[in-house]
């Protein structure tokens, strides 16, 4: 019972009282009394009782052992009936210790049936929100452009529904030029967080355009690469064996906390030529853009941007055959919206 004594003498005396009182309170339990009675109800009385004589004891450097009441507290209770408190201590600690360190200064109250009844767990479990279903819908790009091919609209949107680990993803990209939908796809995927920064997604993709509609199985990753590059990479296998891949990376440069410059790079690869859709194999198309947005609110940010598109290999050849520009630069105006 090592007692580092306190500098403030009156306080020390006060707290000594408390220990003494607790001891006394406990010793009262050894006396016959109604089992269900709350121990603490006796506290005030016993404290009052001890208070007077003990207040007179001058605090000394090593007050505790010298103190008669304390001795009763520490030893008196353990000797006549050592069973409850001691047995528990040994069980908990699993090894022998010097008796002084083994015995709590403030005795552990002996449990009553009332204590046990109060500790019965309720029938219902604790309601938790830690796996709640949440959702997020983002129109990352929703923009109008004016290009050689005409004026048009382009969108790129994604949404998830689910928990921190398991999510259902919807992704869509498309383009509408001169009132005609030129390209549109929709992906439905299951996504699972597999590591600190990465989700794996797997599902299906349906292309409405260009050409006749087609379906793919999709497998990809989404996440945050070092330096906070947001990366999506997905591979596709079509119902007739055609393969393709799309890789997209974007980054946010904060000019101010509201004015954000967002560079973006998108690469499209194909496993084979698809003459009907005017796509060649290999790296077919690349797009690089910068968009400068102003976050009027976090959730609504209008932007202007400059986008450059390149086509390569057979894809470029197809474009030449069609009298279309192989490469194209366009100015875009749009808004980034999420909810």
């Amino acid at each position, binding site marked *: 019972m090592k007692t580092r004594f306190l500098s403030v003498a009156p306080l020390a005396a006060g707290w000594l009282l408390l220990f003494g009182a607790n001891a006394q309170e406990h010793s009262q339990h050894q006396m016959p009394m109604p089992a269900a009675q709350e121990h*603490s*109800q006796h506290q005030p009385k016993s404290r009052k009782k001890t208070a007077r004589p003990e207040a007179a004891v001058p605090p000394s450097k090593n007050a505790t052992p010298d103190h008669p009441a304390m001795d009763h507290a520490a030893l008196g209770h353990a000797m006549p009936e050592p069973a409850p408190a001691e047995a528990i201590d040994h069980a908990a600690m699993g090894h022998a210790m010097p008796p002084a360190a083994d015995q709590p200064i403030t005795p552990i109250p002996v449990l009553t049936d*009332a204590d046990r009844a*109060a500790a019965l767990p309720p029938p219902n479990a604790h*309601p*938790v929100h830690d796996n709640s279903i949440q959702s*997020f819908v983002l129109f990352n790009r929703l923009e109008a452009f004016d290009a050689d091919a005409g004026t048009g609209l382009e969108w790129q949107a994604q949404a998830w529904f689910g928990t921190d680990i398991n999510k259902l993803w919807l992704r869509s990209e498309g383009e509408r030029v001169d009132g005609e939908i030129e390209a549109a796809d929709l992906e439905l995927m299951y996504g699972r967080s597999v590591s600190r920064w990465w989700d794996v997604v797997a599902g299906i993709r349906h292309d409405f355009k260009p050409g006749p509609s087609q379906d793919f199985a999709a497998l990809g990753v989404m996440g945050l690469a070092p330096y906070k590059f947001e990366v999506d990479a997905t591979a596709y296998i079509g119902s007739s064996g055609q393969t393709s891949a799309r890789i997209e990376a974007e980054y946010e440069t904060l000019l101010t906390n*509201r004015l954000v410059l967002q560079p973006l790079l998108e690469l499209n690869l194909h496993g084979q030529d698809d003459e009907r859709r005017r796509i060649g194999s290999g790296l077919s198309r690349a797009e690089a853009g910068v968009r400068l947005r102003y976050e009027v609110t976090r959730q609504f940010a209008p932007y202007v941007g400059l986008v450059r598109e390149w086509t390569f290999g057979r894809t470029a050849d197809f474009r030449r055959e069609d009298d279309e520009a192989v490469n194209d630069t366009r100015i875009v105006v749009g808004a980034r919206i999420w909810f």
Partner: protein
Amino acid sequence: MSSDSFGRNGLSMPSRRRFVQGLAAGGAAAGLGLWPRASWALASPGQANVLSGTEFDLVIGETPANFTGRTRTAIAVNGSIPAPLLRWKEGTTVNLRVTNALPAGSVHGHEASIHWHGILLPANMDGVPGLSFGGIHRGETYHYRFTVRQGGTYWYHSHSGYQEQAGLYGPLVIDPIEPAPFAYDRDYVVMLTDWTDMDPAALFSRLKKMSGYDNHSRRTVGDFMRDARNNGLAATIDDRRMWGEMRMTPTDLSDINANTYTYLMNGTTSLGNWTGLFRTGEKVRLRFINGSSMTHFDVRIPGLKMTVVAADGQYVHPVTVDEFRIATAETFDVVVAPSGQDAFTIFAQDMGRTGHVSGTLAVREGLRAPVPAVDPRPILTMADMGHGGMGHDMKGMKDMKGMEGGCGAAMGMAGMDHAQVTDASAPSGHSGHDMSKMQGHDMASMGSGSGSMAGMDHGAGGMQQHPASEDGNPLVDMQTMAPVPKLDDPGIGLRDNGRKVLSYAMLKSTFDDPDGRDPGRDVELHLTGHMERFAWGFNGQKFSEVEPLRFNYGERLRIVLVNDTMMTHPIHLHGMWSDLEDEQGNFLVRKHTIDMPPGSRRSYRVRADALGSWAYHCHLLFHMEAGMMREVRVVE
């Protein structure tokens, strides 16, 4: 003796609901003055909010509230926000009949509860639905009855859903049997809280969609230029590279700040200017309670020294400071002796330096003193996050490869003495990709979760090990490398500010360790989270994923907490005291809530003398709701 102004038949409350008004001067619930001593006639409506005695009728219901200019449906006790100040007396048995009068279809749910924070009581009186009792359903009354075994300043709040955020919190003052060991002439509660007009459930969803929504202080290109000018281009690039590799933001100090919140003092805004009266020469006891949901406040009274006399309701050796940080759920009692001015501003700014709330100590109503500007915003350093010993020398980090595995996960393991890990349940080493470096160490035998670390050297500078459950865990975005207790650190944004700021090392209980035994075992738990996903837990696991922690009735154990996140978490154990230890493992101060700054490792002793199931959680409401909670089951 009871419930003065609200009476017993609290069910009639809805008709008497008051319009809680924050913008109006004073506010409906302002002025929580205690003990109207002789010659003190405080004309404050707050007096009506004090309920004392042993019989209490509390009615939980909806109340219109307007703190921002817009009226919202808040949740209140007896129509008031904060809930009435309850004054108990140590040694008495209190009866509290709490009625749920929420209307059908309330946005605050159909179930309610009240938890008496920091109070020692039987498990079924603790007020946590699903752990202590079944909750209080609409129209039902729960009878809380227990004997008050302590004195001091505490508080009470709902433990159901987000009700605490919507207004269900109130101060609790227990008059001790022995008079306080310090003198004072007046006594006020100063309860600091955060209010949002948003539906708290929508706010939680917003955090899940974009956790950084409220951070409008992210570093910009302009900051980069300035830092490059001041610190050199190479150092600035290194710094940005570090944070970039970690994919974190050093200005993330709190998840929700004044961009969303309106801070309240005793239920009123700065404009409402809660005022506590004094006469020159008097000593005033201020009982600060942080009843917020998500806010750490830094508190000072310019022109006055504050003598801290109690922490979390328990007396400490008086220590005089200029300022203190109060974590959510903590309480500090201070004594001030105002003189020389007619008015002093009580100034509480949030840790993220986005806003403040102020009130006034004055010789009469209507006076104000100058309100200081909010301090400059601090920026987290690698040292703050426990990637320690390196200070600002980022070059030390250059040897670190594979940051992918997290900060420090790939640091050289050679220096670690794994032979010292003797307990099979001890936390394992680092992330999976590094295991090859741990020669001959059988990871399989190490299991997961927390276990005894006895015999290990946790001295400063040592490498921190982590539970196996954190390895490759998608909900753990960071692991600290060399955490230290930081007990003498006033905290982020409070260092070297020219003021004397309270730290945990200055808090010393006026009594010795009341148990006196050496802890029989250590339970080590890591605070973990993922900022982007807004997922939180212990050891990478959420509340719903894990079994209760089991304590044996009567045992003395040591809880060791390691903060593996970049946020500050106030950790609260219900039903039992948390006896904080100093660096040497000596008893320092008795508390009910232990604040854990990033990069810290702190230990405290627990005496498992309360049978039953108890909540153990981060007191930041949305961290708890996101999973940073455990059940502690004390069994025979």
